[in-house]
């Protein structure tokens, strides 16, 4: 059975290779082939899942050593896989949502001449993401880590003729590279500390090392997670990444890749559990991003960017939860899965709206679309209810648990975190309601002559419907008997913690803040008409529209500074480094210009020097003998 693991990755990888190298001949069938292989992978995943369920909780993890990758003395890097409950969860999420989005893309990308290439990239992404979650050591994980980065780069920049897309792709890759640097340093520290970077070795020996090294590893892993999961301070790329086609935003920048950071921290729980201080940092990062993303989400008029802010904020929840330690890991993953469903659904909905609206993304030019796109409206609406945590839907179950866990952290910290998460829930309700109202309710604000809103074809609506089911049911299913927590417990361990507030109070307060958020949004966008041109807004709104000035900071400090640095270095290289050499050369030139006068061209003159030279040689020989 464990041989199937390699096949799981091989299927989409094969698809990518065939589609990317196949040339135009495959244009006609490329999308079907890509979808088929993604589905094959999903099928394999389900088979493995069934197999895993057949074993007892402690025997579920499967290891498969494929081959020795870099065999160098003292450095054992292997290609080996580890399929345990955590990986399994991800495999199913990735291949499941992935397959749905493949199907969706068939319709969405129908008119794009490079559809085959798009599917090739999507398959490549699936393979890399699966490698990331299945690797049994950090180096192989790093391969997947960069692989998804590459796929993300290629897909964000898929419409390369748009300079904005190309720039966004480059930005995403670069910011991710900063995170990758963290991961590679972490691996190097692991190697020097434990002599290995296999999960098993590291986690077994992590208790034997001192605070310093564990902290370094933890912080570096956190840096990596920040890069991939768009957490403060490396969050700036996610908004721009919406330049990619919408299915990409749904799959990569909402459901799967951006949650890799959560996976990394959860996977490395053994390390983080050792160092409280790092966990505190993780929690702070999560909390800050949670609010940051939510605030940004409130201000954006671009539907995808609003959703991107929301993604950032939701991942903030997850990161915060992972920072809580064993209290939170399981809930982080649970929120990750439910978020995968509803956020993918929301993005696909947004894509469907754009599809019907001539690729218009400005919500101020939507309005009243519920009549024109009923399926999209319903599925989007269900996703909306799920994300704001409407009782009974997926988001309610998972987010509520994280808020509880935050309180359960205990002490002042617990209270602060609880408050932050509650505040976040309120803002989430506010901005999602805003999106909903601006898009599907109110007056039509589009130009009726140019735009003819219509429902999307079946290939697009079916995945949305499936995801809507997930958004509605997943959370509830997971929470029956705490089945999800129990499922993950062997990997992540679990403790309830002791919350100062009872679960009921927490649930009640979440519902209250939810209502406040919805109410505020309705007061602003539901009661009165939405202006087509954005009002100037308050200072905070304007800052939030510019991603809270993060980009401006980057531009001034990093881009400008970097430009100056490189320009002055080019100058230095030309004048100073080269100049020293050229100066020497010029000096020699001048000297030889003088010596050249000795070359008068008369053979006899030269003969004299030869003769003198011979005399000197004889003298030297004689002297040497005398000595």
């Amino acid at each position, binding site marked *: 059975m464990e041989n199937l693991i390699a096949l799981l990755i091989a299927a989409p990888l094969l698809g990518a290779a065939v589609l990317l190298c196949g040339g135009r001949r495959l244009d006609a069938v490329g999308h079907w082939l890509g979808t088929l292989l993604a589905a094959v992978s999903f099928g394999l995943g389900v088979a493995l899942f069934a197999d895993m369920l057949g074993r007892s909780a402690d025997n579920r993890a499967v290891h498969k050593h494929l081959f020795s990758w870099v065999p160098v003395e003292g450095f054992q890097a292997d290609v080996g896989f580890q399929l345990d409950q955590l990986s399994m969860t991800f495999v199913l999420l990735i291949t499941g949502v992935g397959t749905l989005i493949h199907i969706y893309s068939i319709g969405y990308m129908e008119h794009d001449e490079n559809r085959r290439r798009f599917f090739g990239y999507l398959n490549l992404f699936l393979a890399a993401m699966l490698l990331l979650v299945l690797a049994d050591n950090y180096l192989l994980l790093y391969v997947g880590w960069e692989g998804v980065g590459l796929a993300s780069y290629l897909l964000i920049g898929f419409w390369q003729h748009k300079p904005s897309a190309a720039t966004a792709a480059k930005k995403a890759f*670069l910011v991710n590279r900063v995170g990758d640097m963290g991961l590679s340093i972490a691996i*190097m520290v692991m190697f*020097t500390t434990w002599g290995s970077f296999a999960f098993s070795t590291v986690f077994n*020996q992590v208790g034997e090392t001192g605070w310093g090294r564990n902290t370094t590893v933890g912080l570096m892993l956190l840096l990596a997670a920040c890069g991939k999961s768009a957490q403060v301070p490396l969050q700036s790329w996610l908004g721009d990444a919406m330049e990619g086609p919408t299915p990409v935003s749904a799959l990569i920048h909402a459901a799967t890749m951006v949650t890799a950071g959560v996976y990394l921290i959860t996977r490395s729980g053994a390390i983080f559990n050792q160092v409280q201080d790092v966990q505190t940092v993780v929690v702070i990062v999560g909390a800050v991003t949670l609010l940051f993303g939510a605030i940004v989400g409130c201000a954006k008029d671009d539907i995808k960017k609003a959703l991107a802010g929301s993604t950032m904020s939701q991942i903030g929840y997850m990161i915060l939860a992972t920072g809580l330690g064993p209290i939170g890991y399981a809930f982080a993953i649970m929120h990750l899965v439910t978020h995968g469903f509803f956020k993918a659904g929301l993005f696909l909905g947004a894509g469907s709206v754009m599809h019907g609206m001539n690729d218009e993304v400005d919500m101020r030019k939507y309005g009243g679309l519920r009549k024109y796109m009923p399926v999209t409206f319903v599925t989007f609406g269900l996703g909306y209810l799920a994300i704001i945590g409407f009782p009974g839907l997926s988001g309610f179950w998972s987010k509520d648990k994280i808020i509880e866990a935050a309180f359960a952290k205990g002490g002042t910290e617990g209270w602060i975190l609880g408050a932050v998460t509650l505040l976040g829930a309120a803002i989430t309700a506010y901005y999602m309601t805003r999106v909903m109202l601006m898009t599907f309710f109110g007056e039509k604000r589009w130009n009726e002559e140019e735009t003819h809103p219509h429902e999307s074809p079946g290939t697009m609506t079916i995945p949305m419907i499936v995801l809507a089911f997930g958004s509605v049911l997943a959370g509830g299913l997971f929470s029956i008997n705490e089945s999800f927590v129990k499922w993950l417990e062997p990997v992540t361990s679990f403790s309830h913690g002791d919350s100062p507030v009872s679960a009921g109070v927490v649930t009640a307060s979440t519902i209250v803040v939810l209502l406040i958020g919805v109410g505020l949004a309705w007061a602003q966008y539901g009661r009165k008409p939405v202006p087509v041109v954005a009002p100037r807004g308050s200072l905070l709104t304007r800052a939030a529209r510019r991603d809270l000035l993060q980009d401006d900071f980057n531009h001034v400090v990093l881009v400008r500074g970097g430009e100056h640095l490189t320009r002055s270095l080019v100058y230095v290289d030309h004048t100073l480094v080269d100049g020293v050499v050229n100066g020497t050369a010029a000096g020699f030139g001048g000297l030889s210009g003088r010596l050249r006068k000795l070359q008068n061209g008369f053979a006899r003159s030269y003969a004299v020097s030869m003769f003198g030279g011979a005399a000197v040689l004889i003298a030297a020989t004689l002297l040497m003998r005398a000595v």
Partner: protein
Amino acid sequence: MSFPLLTATAALPAVGAIATAAVPAERRTAAKWLALLVSLGTLALAAVQLVRFEPGGDRYQLTESHAWIKDFGVRYELGVDGIGVALIALTALLIPFIIVAGWHDADPLETHSSRWRPTQGFFALILAVEAMVVLSFEATDVFLFYILFEAMLIPMYFLIGGFGDRAHEHGDEAAATQRSYAAVKFLLYNLVGGLLMLAAVIGLYVVAGTFSLDEIAAARANGSLDMATNTERLLFLGFFFAFAVKAPLWPLHTWLPNAMGEATAPVAVLITAVVDKVGTFAMLRFCLQLFPEASKWATPVILVLAVISIIYGALLAVGQRDIKRLVAYASISHFGFIVMGIFAMTTQGQSGATLYMVNHGISTAALMLVAGFLISRRGSRLIADYGGVQKVAPLLAGTFLVGGLATLSLPGLAPFVSEFLVLVGTFSRYPAIGVIATLGIVLAALYVLVLYQRTMTGPVKAEVQGMPDLKVRELLVVAPLIAILVFLGVYPKPLTDIVNPAVQHTMSDVHKKDPKPVVEAAQ
């Protein structure tokens, strides 16, 4: 006596060079085919070497030894270790690609030009370089090595100075002037290095009384040859300086951007992927083996220089406006990694450095040759003259991207393995330097992606419109290189198996052991 395989591998291209040069001028195409056949034959011989080489066997294998200049104890001594055999394979592998890629580079110009372009000469010179490089990887006699080290400058000089890109933004004359400037700069830099090395070679002979690497190393190992500390250091510096110029290490690097910028792309590949490797190879073979103590003494300074090379090269690459110069600065950055790996004095570092030499050769060849195809289409080296190429020539853009990704060490492609090994190897002994060098991977992403973005993406420029995609000949060059990059990225074991024993030997030469993991050391 068994078949002198090593001599044959070097002699075949040498004879081929003469034969190619002798083909009459009007039969240009025949000369090209002859050169290609010879290079393929050399590749076959190199493959035989790989097969015959036993990783677990003696340190130097397939040895040959003949008296040459008896009075000075100079011998024609050849032998390969794992590192040598790998680099010979790299050289033999790249030359056919270089020849095919440069198929039309030396054709006579259609337009009136004062410069004569002897087609046969171009290919004969390439083969001559191959012969000398191969032999220098094989030489185990210091004097023999020195002669080859210097002699290969001559054909390189003519290749750089004699053959440039077809078009130049400032016209033919300006191009010729810049070319000869670059060629002279290349020659002078390397000659100065060679001169110091000559002094050190003579000094070594005076001290050791022989030129044989084996004998000296053995004498050093068993203590019968005891050098005074200062003598050893001076000799080491003499050798190292020459290799550092060739490698090239900051601040001796400025010849490389000029040379690579002015030469045609295949020649640029020849410089950076083949000839410069002799420098780093010689650091491993001669500096460490002959002067272990001095090497250790100089390590801190060299590592700092290497790190400066990495960061500085990458930063300058970001600031370049010329595609070829950008690749050149990227190479400087990569050579920094190689030198760092060598002098980190860890198994991982040195294995990584050796793999890096091979991988950098292939990845740079892929990137630079595609860049050359691009440049030959538009007739400009300036990045700003391109834009939107991806739309009109997707294959070209795609292969360019893969080459670029290899350059930025994307996992899954060969350079990643080596770069990571170098970083780990360095980090385990010098954490601070390892961390700073890691910055290089971010900067690498920056210069590669900026280059790709500016040339390939965005709206299609008017001049780029109608640019043809890769032709079959060009695809034949690029596709195998990419395949090798992928293969070695996923499964580098064949290479590491050959390299590992050699690295073990080098490590024992310098009396260094890998630092133990902290946990193990604590126990």
